[in-house]
């Protein structure tokens, strides 16, 4: 597996502000990598550094094996799809698509042919003569992508391309972008703040916070073995429950603190008395009959979408539970709760890191 993009020890400063901290990232050729994190985490800065719109302060950035640290954007041979689409408003769709070819000096007939080919793939054929202002949001999005595709670049860079679309179109375009990526065999880097987008589209997810890569790996790896509380809370919807606990005296159990204390046996060892934070995904808590299960708690709120049911339990801190189907329990009822075996994530309460083992 060859790396198409390779970052070694990359740092970026804006004056005194340290925007990217010791970034180590290797992006496999043909892979779909998502950079995800809350706003201000540095994911866009990282993407713009790949494009050359920002210069990195130190470290090495290689694209297709060549060091690109000081190479201007126009010589990097990467294409970018902007959040605002950045379509040229004074050019028709066809002129927008073929702009890069025109700059390169490609003959007009050839440009037209290339535009027709790409438009056929992205379904823009009937819109080639229109101006961007005459297009809907989804169509503009397609033009922006086609403008990137026509160049056959070394890498596609997407900067939150779906954030200006409505929810239904977003889900649709998500699939379309991924299908296009597979068809072109391209290398894509995709910035988003939406973890669902990252999880569903990418082969490789990079989670960032405050300029640091918190964890990277396949989507399911991140879901199953989050390296710390931040990643655990960021991935998954609804978000993971975190329950305070301390290690039991026998070293093989924990004492949960949900208002009243509850001892739960573990299949592993912990340090007696160690302060812990127990991560438990809402989908890994099962409802049991009242009085049964590991613990029993009153139901505070029942929200149902018909297919899925969201329960909020009146504990401190609140516990959220999600399951398919309908709830027999109503707000105010007591319900028993069971945890799916092996679904508990143990984090050190102080360092917030996952306990080894």
């Amino acid at each position, binding site marked *: 597996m060859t790396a198409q993009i390779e970052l070694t020890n990359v740092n970026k400063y804006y004056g005194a502000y340290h925007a990217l901290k010791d970034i180590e990232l290797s992006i496999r050729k043909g892979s779909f990598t998502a950079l995800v994190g809350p706003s201000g985490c540095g994911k866009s800065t990282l993407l713009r550094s790949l*494009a*050359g*719109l920002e210069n990195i302060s130190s470290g090495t950035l290689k694209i297709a094996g060549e060091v690109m640290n000081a190479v*201007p*954007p*126009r*010589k*990097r041979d*990467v*294409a*970018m799809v*902007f959040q*605002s689409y*950045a*379509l*040229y*408003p*004074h050019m028709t769709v066809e002129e927008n698509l073929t*702009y*890069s070819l*025109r*700059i*390169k000096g490609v003959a007009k007939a050839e440009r037209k042919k290339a535009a027709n080919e790409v438009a056929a793939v992205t379904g823009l054929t009937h819109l080639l003569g229109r101006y*961007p*202002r005459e297009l809907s949001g989804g169509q503009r999005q397609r033009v922006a992508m086609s*403008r990137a595709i026509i*160049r056959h670049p070394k890498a596609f860079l997407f900067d939150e391309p779906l954030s200006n679309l409505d929810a239904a179109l977003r889900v649709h375009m998500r699939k379309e972008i991924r299908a296009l990526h597979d068809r072109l065999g391209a290398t894509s880097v995709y910035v988003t703040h939406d973890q669902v987008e990252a999880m569903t589209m990418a082969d490789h997810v990079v989670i960032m916070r405050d300029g640091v890569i918190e964890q990277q790996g396949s989507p399911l790896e991140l879901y199953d073995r989050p390296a710390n509380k931040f990643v655990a809370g960021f991935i998954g919807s609804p978000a993971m429950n975190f329950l305070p606990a301390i290690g039991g005296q026998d070293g093989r159990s924990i004492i949960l603190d949900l208002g009243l204390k509850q001892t739960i046996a573990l299949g592993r060892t912990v340090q007696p008395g160690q302060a812990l934070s127990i991560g438990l995904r809402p989908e890994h808590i099962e409802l049991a009959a009242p009085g049964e299960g590991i613990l029993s708690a009153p139901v505070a709120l029942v929200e149902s979408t018909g297919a899925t049911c969201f329960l909020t339990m009146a504990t401190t801190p609140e516990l959220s539970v999600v399951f398919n189907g309908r709830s027999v329990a109503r707000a105010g009822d007591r319900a028993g709760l069971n945890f799916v075996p092996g679904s508990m994530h143990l984090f050190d309460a102080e360092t917030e890191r996952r306990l080894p083992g």
Partner: protein
Amino acid sequence: MKRFLSSMIDGRGFDIGLVSLPLAFLLTLSGLPLLYNIVMSFQEVDMFSLGSFWRPFVGLKNYRDLFAQPETWPILANTATFVAASIAGQFLVGFGLALFFWTSFPGASWLRGLFLVSWVMPGLVVGAIWNWILSGDFGVLNFILRETGLIDGNIFWRSDPGFSLWAVIIANIWLGTSFNMILLSVGLSAIPRDLYEASELDGANVWQRFWTITLPMMRSSIGAIMALGLIFTLQQFDLFAAITSGGPNNASNVTQYWAWDLSFRQYDFAKGATISVIMIAFVMVASVVYVRSTRHEVRG
């Protein structure tokens, strides 16, 4: 009556009232004089008929007489030169400055604001200052040109027929440049940054970005500034009064100064009105260009 009052307070009557006030103002102070001017250009006007509106109608006689005068065509040509050179100079220098300040170095916006001082200055004051700069014997412009070796002897800018029009043009370019710069700066700052980033990634270098993004995106701004420039230069009177008074021997005379000269110094009101009507035609064309170019603004 009651319905009328209530519509004046919160209905269409209020809207019409708001619009009619400035319209009435415009009509009385601009529309009527304009019409009166056009009417006068078809009448025989002398000192004795000045006070009455009903004067002998002479058809196109004033126009025929005007074009029979030997100085008419040279003055029209001077006007064309003055307008074209002033607009070109103001636009090129203004655009250059706008692009320069667009690079946003420290203090750029502060310095750009300072440039507006030249536009705020009254034309007569600007004329007086340029009189010193352009002075043949001790003027600083001659000094610079002589010391850099560009000229051997002094140029008498204001009294040499070959230079007098250009003396006013130079002053007018100085006067109008900052207005061009401000308007073009606004146009430049309205171009979204990400267009440049996109075109940079598409492989365009600085020149290609200028020709394919900046200039086309500035089309409406440029159209507007050209049309306004035409109107402003056709209005430019103070500089002529202050620098050359149209001389020597009409070498720097232009229609707007000549119209005033004919009407209020030679008391030939009919010819003064006639030349004004010819100017109105040109300004109308410019206004149409201006209105069209501001309407056709490109929006993303």
